[in-house]
């Protein structure tokens, strides 16, 4: 089996994996980082979104081997020194989650979205369009949109 090495949440990791191992399987099964979820098998629900070299990526559709040498951040790595990221805070403050299953992917997508729109406009319509790749069945998105708007102001 080939060996893959990458940085996950600031820690160097290395393991022998089958060629077909997906990034999400590597994170969940090999590293025990179960905050990243699998909600579908067609790359549409977005529960598995993580950051690879600063970009939001669906880890269910990425091979672990593709991430050789990459810098990966998962939901477990978003808070720094125990302080929640403004996006995490905003999701709690605005009740942007219910069952919590889509939440890690939503937060990772939302952080990426706000970073990409820094200096530009991130209005409600844009946020809703940007959430195309993340499905939530609980919230009707209303409070997710509010949370992202609120966090965007704090992250500006």
């Amino acid at each position, binding site marked *: 089996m080939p060996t893959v090495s990458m940085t996950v949440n600031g820690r160097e990791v290395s393991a022998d994996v089958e060629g077909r191992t997906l990034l999400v399987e590597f994170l969940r099964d090999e590293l025990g*980082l179960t905050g990243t979820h699998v*909600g579908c098998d067609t790359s549409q*629900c977005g529960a598995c979104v993580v950051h690879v070299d600063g970009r939001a990526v669906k880890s269910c559709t990425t091979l672990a081997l593709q991430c050789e040498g990459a810098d990966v951040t998962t939901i477990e790595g978003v808070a720094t020194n125990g302080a929640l990221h403004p996006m995490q805070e905003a999701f709690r403050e605005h009740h942007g989650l219910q069952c919590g299953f*889509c939440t890690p992917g939503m937060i990772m997508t939302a952080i990426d979205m706000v970073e990409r729109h820094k200096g530009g406009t991130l209005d409600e319509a844009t946020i809703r369009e940007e959430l195309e790749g993340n499905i939530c069945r609980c919230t009707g*998105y*209303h*409070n*997710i949109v509010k949370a992202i708007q609120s966090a965007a102001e704090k992250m500006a």
Partner: protein
Amino acid sequence: MSETGIGKRLPRMEDHRFITGKGRYTDDINLPRQTYAAFVRSPHAHATINGIDTSQAEGAPGVVAVLTGEDVAADGIGGLICGWMIHSKDGSPMKAGPHPILAQGKVRYVGDHVAVVIAETKAEAQAAAELVEVDYDPLPAVAETAKASADGAPQIHDEAPDNTVFEWSLGDEAAVTEAFDKASHVTTLELVNNRLIPNAMEPRAAIGDYDSGSDSFTLYTTSQNPHVARLVLSAFVGIAPEHKLRVIAPDVGGGFGSKIFIYAEETVCVWAAKRVGRPVKWTGDRSEAFLADAHGRDHVTHAELATDGDGRITGMRVKTIANMGAYLSTFASSVPTYLYATLLSGQYDIPAIYCEVDAVYTNTAPVDAYRGAGRPEATYVVERLVETAARELNLSPAEFRRRNFITEFPHQTPVIMAYDAGDYGASLDKALELVDYDGFEQRRQESERNGKLRGLGFSNYIEACGIAPSQAVGSLGAGVGLWESAEVRVNPTGNVEVLTGSHSHGQGHETTFAQLVSDRLGIPADQVSVVHGDTDKVQFGMGTYGSRSGAVGMSAIFKALDKVEAKARKVAAHVMEASESDIEFKDGQFSVKGTDKKMAFGEVALAAYVAHKFPTDEIEPGLKEGAFYDPKNFTFPAGCHICEVEIDADTGVTRIVNWVAVDDFGTIINPMIVEGQVHGGIAQGVGQALTEGCRYDAESGQLVTGSYMDYCMPRADDLPSFNLGFTETACPSNPLGMKGCGEAGAIAAPAAVINALTDALGVKDIPMPATSEVVWRIIQENKPRVAAE
């Protein structure tokens, strides 16, 4: 008054683990030496099994065992049950075929469980499942609801001739016939309540574990009601005696009904764990969820409304065919009967109602409760009829409704339910104000100038929640009582553990239940932890569905708190050397009337455990109380939702431009959480109306909408922000005055959307889901008229 008590918008206690990736869902749990299960599923909608050759699979890498229906039978394991008995009009009991956990000689829908492969890894189990050779003789299939009992339809279960499970009725047929004979106007609609696939974001999963040392089993599973799962697996399936089976439902990623039921997969995992002597884990993928989770709705209905010359409703007649799928799921039979026809009076004073329901088997996945369960179907019938009648009578939809509202309570409907409280005019008035009803005509003209069609649709829903009292549901055929249990354990240091039989899978019980305790005992909510979802910890529970956790589950906690307070008063009286009748308890302080003596709740808790200052032959040490609560009546949340749409006449694309919801849920514990429940419910209802529709190929019975590529889940840009309001009439049937809020949006929304679309398009009806293609075709068909208007 507690800062974290009833009525406060307290951020959720459970959120920290979810936003930091520390939630613990079933698939996040791994046991030492665990194996992985993969199911061999039927590729045919209907077929006889001549034989199963497992030899190749058994020899595949990593395979531990391959088990089939023969092994199930050899171990004396029973089939799955339907826990609600329905009797047909002629008095005969419903005709249910067996529901084996692995097929016994026949398969009845695409996805039916035929065999299971257990292997060292998930990939090895899945690869070996492909090697199981099943010799099928395909049979003709029927997937369509309306054709299930047609001449020549294939027989699905020998026990149910013509694929008819029951032919049930409710109401006074003669009175309804008379009302229609005398009616000055009759409104008729042919309605299809489209089949839906629930799609909780966490796919179902299970881990079965067997401990030979104690001869006991543990099942980790994605359940809304772990105690009910244990009861069914013990008493009916015969996996293990109840005291030798522990069921744990840890964090569960949404349910919406689909995780109430006891399915084949978890049953197989727990049974197979003893067979192979190792834990057996199964995590469904989304494709399996589409195939084999219980689906929802799927009614074909003929509905009529009779009115007199004054625009008053005099009668309603409804005939429904309800698709049960290939097997009767756990509560399937109750959904199109007592959860449906009993709500056909809506918010209206209707003297005579008669409803017939034929339940049919088809070669499709089982159909059972999905958010709202029967009540969305009832509301759709009532509110589509009422809106259509108003238009036919040239009355405004608001005025026609107002003319027919029930205004005096209690109100006995002709379909069992006795409404206890409500003010339907108040919610309508508030909704009209929030939607700026008076300004609608101007907005409509403005849209028209831009080539758009604008419409407004009402839905004045009512639902019956709590699904209790036990005697009442027992008389209607339920196999269980529908009370709830709770235990309040006060620790010596004064903090509190609440053990509840309700189960939270998104509803925020860890917060709202703590708010109740905070309110009653005057301690901060963060001094309260809520324990649920483990049959070894919680005494018993009926679980969470039917918006019952507030009205029933919290009432049980309330009752246990009464007992805690009563005992704490006794303890406080002894410690402060006062008469018990002089003890007052307010804001977390026990005090002696007329003196400055006082003790904080925590001090009394400590005194109860130290037990130095009271006679323990009169008062037992400790401070822990349990309660079982059975409500007096169902609860009746109701409200008015108004949907305003704008349609692009060139493309048929519908945009919801305004959504107003004014709900009466009685007492609200946490407005933020309640609003969230309404938002999510509306989104699911809008999904049913505009985007979601399960399709089976009529000939082959293949599921056509088997992934998110084909089944359109509402995305963020399919929905607007919602404009919510509340009115409040306290529910007299439980001590907190709560009614329940979990299903309201899903119940109200479909009729509101379709009423808005038909208003915009000037047509009588439009089928769900009203996708842009459907809308565009209707615009094309009606073009001359639309243009002329």
